[in-house]
Each structure stands twice: as C-alpha cells, then as structure tokens.
C-alpha cells in the first residue's frame, strides 16, 4: 500500500511538472522549458540558467565605532558586531539595549572611513627581527600561552608604554598593522559564499569646502589577497573625486582586482554632487564624463539622511516627490543653500542633465544605477520602521528622540523625527557571492528601496506584449526580448516604440502595493530636459481608474496611528504589466525607470509614539509610502 502511494504520487509529481509547463521566477527553472524561451538553445540544459533568479538584499553603507566620527558620537560597536548583526545575530547596541533584525540581510558592505590607525602585530606573528629582542620574545611566548599569560603580557606592554620603556623596535612603522587590515580580516572571516556576503569596503569622505557632501563608498570585488596590497585613499590625500578615480585605476592596475564607487547624499552637497563642471570648476570633457561613469556605476538614492532621488521644486508635477523624506535645508553642516543649488543635487535631474552633457561632449557622466543604504553610524543596519535604531547611539530608541536635535550647527537644526528609516539595495545577482553581487552592481542590475524587501523586475525592449505579463516568470521573456534594469536600448526599429515589462511582488512582511509607475526623462527638440511620470499598473484596479490627465485616485489609508498598525485590505500583493511609451520620439535621447509604491504604513515615528506613549507635534509624519526605484534603461538613437 505504502509503495503504491509512493509510486502514484511520484507519477503525479512528474506528470504534473510536464503538464504545468510554467517556468518560475524566484525558484527553480525546469531546464527543458527554459531552453525554448531563450534565443539560442544550446546543448547543455543548464546553460540557460545563467540569469539572476532572485534579488539579494543588503546595505552598502555602514559605519561602526571604527569610523572616527562614529567613535566621536560614542559608537562602540566594531565591524565584527556590525556583520554579526546584519547576518541575524542578536547584539547589544551602544545604548545597552539588545537588538536583532526582523530578518537577516543577504550581504553587507561595512564602509568605515579609511585611515591608518595602527596597532602592534609583529609580536603575535613572531616576526624574526622582533624575536631578537628578549622582551618581545618573552611577550610573544606569553601571548601564545593562553589567556591568563596573554593578559599578563598585555599588562606589561601597557606598563612599558606608560613608562616609556617600550622596545623601540615595536614602534617601527613596518610592524604597525592598520585598522584597514584588521577590518579586511574580519570580512574574510564572515564572508560565506552562497550564504552571506561580507564585502571589503571603505568610505572616502570628501567634504569639499568644509561640508559639501561628495562622499563615495568604495566596494571591492576582491578578497584579502588583493585588497591588502594597497592602502585606501583618504581625504588627507585629496578631496577631489577625480583623484579617487585615479586611485581606483592604480589599485586595479597593481592588483588585477576590481573596485567601484557609490556616491551618496547629493541632497547635502550644496549643488556640487551633480555639478555641470569638474571639481575644480572646469568644463566637462568627454574623458571626464567617461571616467565618472566608469568608476561610479551606482548612486545611493535614499538613506537615513533623506532621499536624493527627486525634489518637489524640480519635479513639480510628481505628486509622490512632495513631502517624502526631504532634507533640503543645507549641506552636511547645514550651511543654507543658495538658489540654483538644488538642481545639481538630485538623481532624476542628473539623469536629465546627463543626456544633455552626452549630447554636448559625447559621454554621459551621470549614468547611474540605483542603490540604497543606511549610513548608520552605530554599527546597526536596523532600518526597519518597527525596529529603528537610528543613525547615532544618541538616538537609539528613547521616548524623546523624535524631538531632540539630530544635527545642530549654530542655530541650524535637523530634528530627530526627520531621520529616515531606510534603505536597502536589491541586487539581481546569479549567486550570493562577492563576485556575482559586484558584477550585478557594475552592470546596474539593481534597485534601491526605502527598506522593504520587495521583488522588482524591469525590462525594456521593442517587442514586449501584454501576454508577457501573464507568464508566471516574466524573467524568461524579459531577458529574451530585451534588456534588464541598468541596460541600454539603441536605435528603435522603424515604427516601433520601446515597451517595458515591469513587475513587483510585495515584501512578504510588508504592505501591499499601491502602484508601479514609469518615470521617463528625455531631451526635447530644443535640447531641454523634460520628465513625466506614467501610472502603469496599480492595485484595486476594479475601483481605481485613471482620469483624463493620467492621474490615479489615492489607494487609501488603513493605518491606525494610535496602535501603529495597518491592514493589507487595500492595494495588491503583486503587480505586473507591460507599458509602451505612447509619446515616443525615436530621434531623442531618453531614460526610463520604474518606481514601486506601497500602500501607506506606519512610519517609525508612529511606532515610537505608540511604544513610548508620547504625543508628537502635528508636523511629524506618522505614515509613509515605502517605495523602490529601479536603475534606468537608457534609449540612445
């Protein structure tokens, strides 16, 4: 009997697979099926499975107590603590509270500010030259002889130091190990290919003119063997991003390795992040534009210090650009902005200006893909709205944190409630490894979210039809008929307009989806940049219709602020659609990217108000519409 059941269920199982010839998106692909969707069906049934099946979620921007500014504000957590926390371990925050992520990340890049903090390491490795010194030899033996003796040796060393009786050999620079090497060693220890990726990384922190944010995170594809060979670039050497690119080129040449840079916080750059001149104020050349695009494939569009994707004064017709996590009062030291600065701070405007520069010099310096991170300075990537540990130890959960000054320079203040609980980068990589993730970042197959782990697909081509949206795996048709997010479309076939296949699956722990939009930017006939937002597919479609101008009624709001709860009774758990540009002009440059909006959910301030039973002032937003932005697809005639 038992055998018969087994046999029959096995038969059912196999016949089911054949009958149900549906390719999958997030899970396994049946090779036999994958083949027929691919342009070239090779002999190997596994050859087709080379495209990314799932996004990997991570944070490309994390500081720990080893960053001098984080140390200054009291952060004590180390890179090791940060990595353990991101993997899902419980740690104790600087403020003494135990904290754990709702769900672990797939990868992390700890980006402490680079510098040469040294420590003594020759003793423990038993360097022969050092071992000639009797004292050092004795300490070496003690360090190796177990914890008790090691303590004793360390105490002696400290005493010798304070009495100025340290063996001179010990202070020789060649025996000083930098915090950089220590940090690398930690990442090596926690990097587990196919389970959890720990990138080697650092932040190059250029504050031009004393506070114009030109920071870049430098992410390595490589391991210790290469990263150890070269010291990171610091702003002691130069504050000019062009010098960072030179450093990156020198690193790659020397080691054969690979690095990329991710700029962030254009919103705090007082007009300098996407300036239409070089750092020194010179005219943009083709070489300059190409170098920038080469070394900087991604831009971090949102983090705890607000978003730099769009500004309501620039995107005046975009209803979702209004009032969303805007930090526009000044630069990093809140030096107020002058008129004209804002237009060189936001990514969407940079996309538009990039087309213009490309028209003029022949290369687009602002061809950025999308990333998002936290920029946390307490070692905790805790950006979940209901689990927000903030940017600094001083604003880890406490009843008053919303009303305190998060940043203060003279009379210029940013309040605690203005901090943003964000963000996460989704990377469409073929595997969770440094190499695969890095390669996906380099080809811009990424999207940034304000925190949710939503799955977002975005393809562009000239042949997508509505039927592609009914397929259970848009990815197969998506890759076969066009390019993925971050890609390029060239020269439209005669009479054809680009069409886009876009799909999103809500975060399993998050709110339903309100809508997917496609944001288009282009150069008009007179060479002036333009933008337009199109509603493509939306939830509750049976009761929500577009009006004559293409606007959609709001999805509604189920948030109960008093209890910081909501229901998924509005919106849809997933959305998919095909959209063809109705206003396409094949002779002008354009870009397209998707924005996915969730239904309103409680903002971290609402969770705080409910948990601590505090009443916040009426200007503090209590709900938010979490969102994702994909990398653009560019059209070049």
């Amino acid at each position: 009997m038992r055998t018969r059941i087994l046999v029959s269920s096995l038969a059912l199982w196999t016949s089911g697979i054949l009958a149900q010839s549906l390719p999958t998106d997030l899970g396994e692909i049946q090779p036999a099926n994958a083949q027929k969707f691919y342009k070239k069906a090779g002999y190997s049934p596994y050859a087709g499975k080379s495209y990314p099946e799932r996004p990997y979620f991570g944070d490309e921007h994390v500081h720990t107590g080893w960053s001098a500014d984080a140390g200054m504000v009291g952060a004590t957590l180390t890179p090791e603590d940060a990595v353990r926390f991101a993997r899902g371990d419980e740690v104790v925050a600087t403020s003494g509270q135990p904290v754990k992520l709702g769900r672990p990340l797939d990868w992390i890049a700890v980006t402490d500010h680079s510098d040469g903090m040294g420590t003594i390491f020759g003793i423990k490795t038993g360097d022969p030259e050092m071992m000639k010194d009797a004292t050092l030899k004795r300490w070496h033996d003690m360090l190796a002889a177990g914890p008790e003796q090691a303590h004793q040796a360390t105490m002696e060393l400290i005493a010798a130091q304070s009495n100025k009786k340290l063996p001179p050999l010990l202070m020789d620079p060649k025996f000083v190990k930098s915090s950089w090497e220590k940090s690398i060693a930690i990442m090596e220890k926690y990097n587990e290919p196919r389970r959890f990726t720990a990138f080697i990384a650092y932040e190059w922190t250029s504050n031009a003119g004393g506070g114009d944010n030109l920071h870049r995170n430098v992410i390595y594809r490589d391991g210790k063997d290469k990263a150890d060979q070269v010291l990171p670039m610091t702003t002691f050497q130069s504050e000019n991003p062009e010098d960072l690119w030179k450093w990156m080129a020198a690193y790659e040449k020397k080691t054969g390795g690979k690095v990329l840079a991710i700029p962030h916080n254009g919103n705090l750059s007082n007009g300098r992040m996407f300036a239409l001149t070089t750092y020194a104020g010179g005219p943009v050349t083709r070489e300059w534009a190409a170098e920038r695009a080469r070394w900087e494939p991604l831009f971090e569009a949102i983090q705890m210090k607000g978003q730099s994707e769009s500004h309501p004064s620039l995107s005046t017709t975009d209803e979702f650009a209004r009032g969303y996590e805007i930090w526009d009062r000044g630069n990093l030291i809140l030096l107020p902005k002058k008129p004209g600065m804002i237009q060189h701070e936001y990514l969407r405007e940079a996309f538009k200006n990039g087309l213009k520069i490309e028209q003029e010099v022949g290369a687009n310096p602002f061809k950025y893909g999308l990333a998002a991170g936290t920029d946390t300075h307490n070692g905790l990537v805790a950006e979940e709205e209901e689990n927000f540990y903030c940017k600094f130890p001083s604003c880890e959960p406490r009843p008053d944190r919303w009303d305190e000054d998060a940043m203060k320079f003279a009379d210029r203040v940013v309040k605690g409630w203005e901090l943003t609980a964000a963000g996460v980068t989704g990377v469409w990589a073929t595997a969770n490894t440094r190499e695969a993730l890095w390669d996906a970042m380099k080809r811009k197959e990424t999207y940034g979210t304000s925190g949710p782990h939503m799955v977002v697909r975005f393809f562009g081509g000239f042949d997508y039809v509505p039927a592609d949206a009914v397929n259970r795996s848009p990815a197969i048709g998506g890759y076969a008929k066009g390019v993925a997010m971050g890609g390029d479309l060239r020269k439209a076939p005669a009479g054809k307009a680009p069409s886009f296949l876009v799909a999103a699956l809500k975060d399993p722990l998050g709110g339903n989806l309100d809508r997917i939009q496609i944001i288009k930017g282009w150069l008009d006939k007179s060479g002036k940049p333009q933008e337009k937002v199109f509603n493509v597919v939306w939830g509750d479609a049976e009761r929500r219709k577009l009006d004559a101008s293409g606007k959609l009624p709001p999805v509604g709001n189920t948030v109960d602020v008093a209890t910081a709860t909501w229901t998924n009774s509005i919106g849809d758990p997933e959305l998919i659609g095909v959209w063809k540009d109705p206003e396409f002009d094949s002779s002008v440059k354009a870009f397209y990217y998707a924005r996915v909006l969730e239904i309103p959910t409680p903002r971290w301030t609402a969770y705080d108000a409910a948990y601590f039973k505090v009443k916040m002032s009426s200007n503090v937003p209590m709900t938010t519409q979490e969102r994702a932005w994909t990398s653009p697809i560019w059209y070049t005639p």
Partner: protein
Amino acid sequence: MQRLLREPLLHFFILGAVLFGVYGWLHRGMPAAQNEIVVSRGQIHSLRVQFERVWQRPPTSQELQGLVDNWVRDEIFYREGMAMGLDRDDPVVRRRIGQKMEFIMDSAEPVVPTTDELQAWLDAHPERYAVEPRYTLRQVYFNPVRQGDSLETAMLAARRSLEHGGFAAGDSTLLPPALTSATADELMQVFGPAFERAMQGLPVGSWQGPVRSSYGVHLVELSEREPGRRATLEEARAAVERDLLHARREEADAALYGRLRANYTVHIDSADGSDADPAG
C-alpha cells in the same frame, strides 16, 4: 572687507593668536619647550612607503618634499597642541586613544581551540548551528480578492484536478510554482512566516490546502520534508571556531578591563547632584 571678515582662514589666525596668547600666559616664566625636530631617515622612508601603498608609485622628489614639510608642520602643531592640553576633553582624541588600547588588548594571537573545546561549544549552542529543515514543494496560488465568492469552488475544482494528475493554473503570480530543497528561511523570505509555519506540520505526499501566505491562499503539495537536525562538528567547524574565538576574545577583553579597572577608585556623582557612594 566684508568678504575678508568671513574668510575662515582669518578666523583661524585670530583664534590661533588668541590661543597662543593664552598659552604664553599660562606658561609664563617656564623654560622654552624642547624645540628640536628630527626627521629621521626612517620617518622619511615611512612617508614614502605610505604614499606608495596608496598610489602604487613612488612620490616625486617634489611630492616627497611636500610630505616631509607637512609632517613637520603637523608635528609642530601636534607638540604645541599637546603642550596646551588640546587633547584633553576632546571626545575624538579620547575615543581614539581608547580604541588603540582596545586594539592592543586584542593583539594576543588566539589559541587554536582543540576539537574537544569546539565540540563542547557546539553542544552548548546547538541552535546556532542547527541544519535547517528543507522543503520540496509545488504550489498553486489563489488571490482571494480576485476570486471573491468563487474562491472556495475554484480551490476545490483545482484540488480535484491536481489529485487526478491534472493541471490547475490558479491565479497568475510571480511566486515560484515549485521549490526544491528550500530552507525554512528561504520559505519565510519568499512566502512569509505564516506559510513557513504551515509547512512544518503539513502532511507529505498529497495536495493540501488552503494554506495562507503573505500573498493569499495556496494549494500545496509537499513532496519532501527533510527535518532539521543538529549539525555535526565537521559541518559547522569553521563557524564554531569563529564564534568560540569571538566569545573568548570578548571574555578576555572584559577580564583585562576588569584588571585595569581594579587599579582605579572611581567616584561617580549622582546625576541630580547629590553625593553617591564610590563606585569602586
């Protein structure tokens, strides 16, 4: 003139002049500070090496001169600043020195744990290294909103068809129709926690449902459930060793701090200004 007054460099010089005045007054009548600076060959070598390690080429003679000049400048400011006590009550300097101490405390080469020690650690924390249960399943998805009143009949019909080896489409979805040997964590990431919990007790080998997920309801055929189990030391050795060394180091740091702390008598005022007992 307006512009000049706003010039940060001017502020710096004025501030500098004031500080030097204060310094001179504080140190009136004292002998001159030691004012010899030797830039040793070793120091120059170190500057050169630092430059090379960043830029992958030796400095030009002009650049090297610049590095040396900067070093001298920094050294002079450093000495003058230290003499003025500028390192005191500076949170950056304080924290930095503290970190250097932590680094030094951390400089002991870890003793490689024995297999017995690793096994003992694993036995004490089996949950951390547990091999997750794995599931192989097929699922058909139904969107309750889209189905409305017909949900129950649709699911019944689909189930009947599936049980007879037929096909059932359900509602179209991006969710994978099948997962092979997926971990509990992967199930949670894809379908949400409720679905993952349901899989723990679902009968194996037949179509079951409705099963709730974060997206709607499903018919699920669980073809295999590999139960979770304790990991063997062989499987978890690298992680066990890493975690054991991490724990030992934290213990060692705490113990070392304890020994240093014992050298001090610490009096802490209570926050409201009243006297408090010495803290140790």
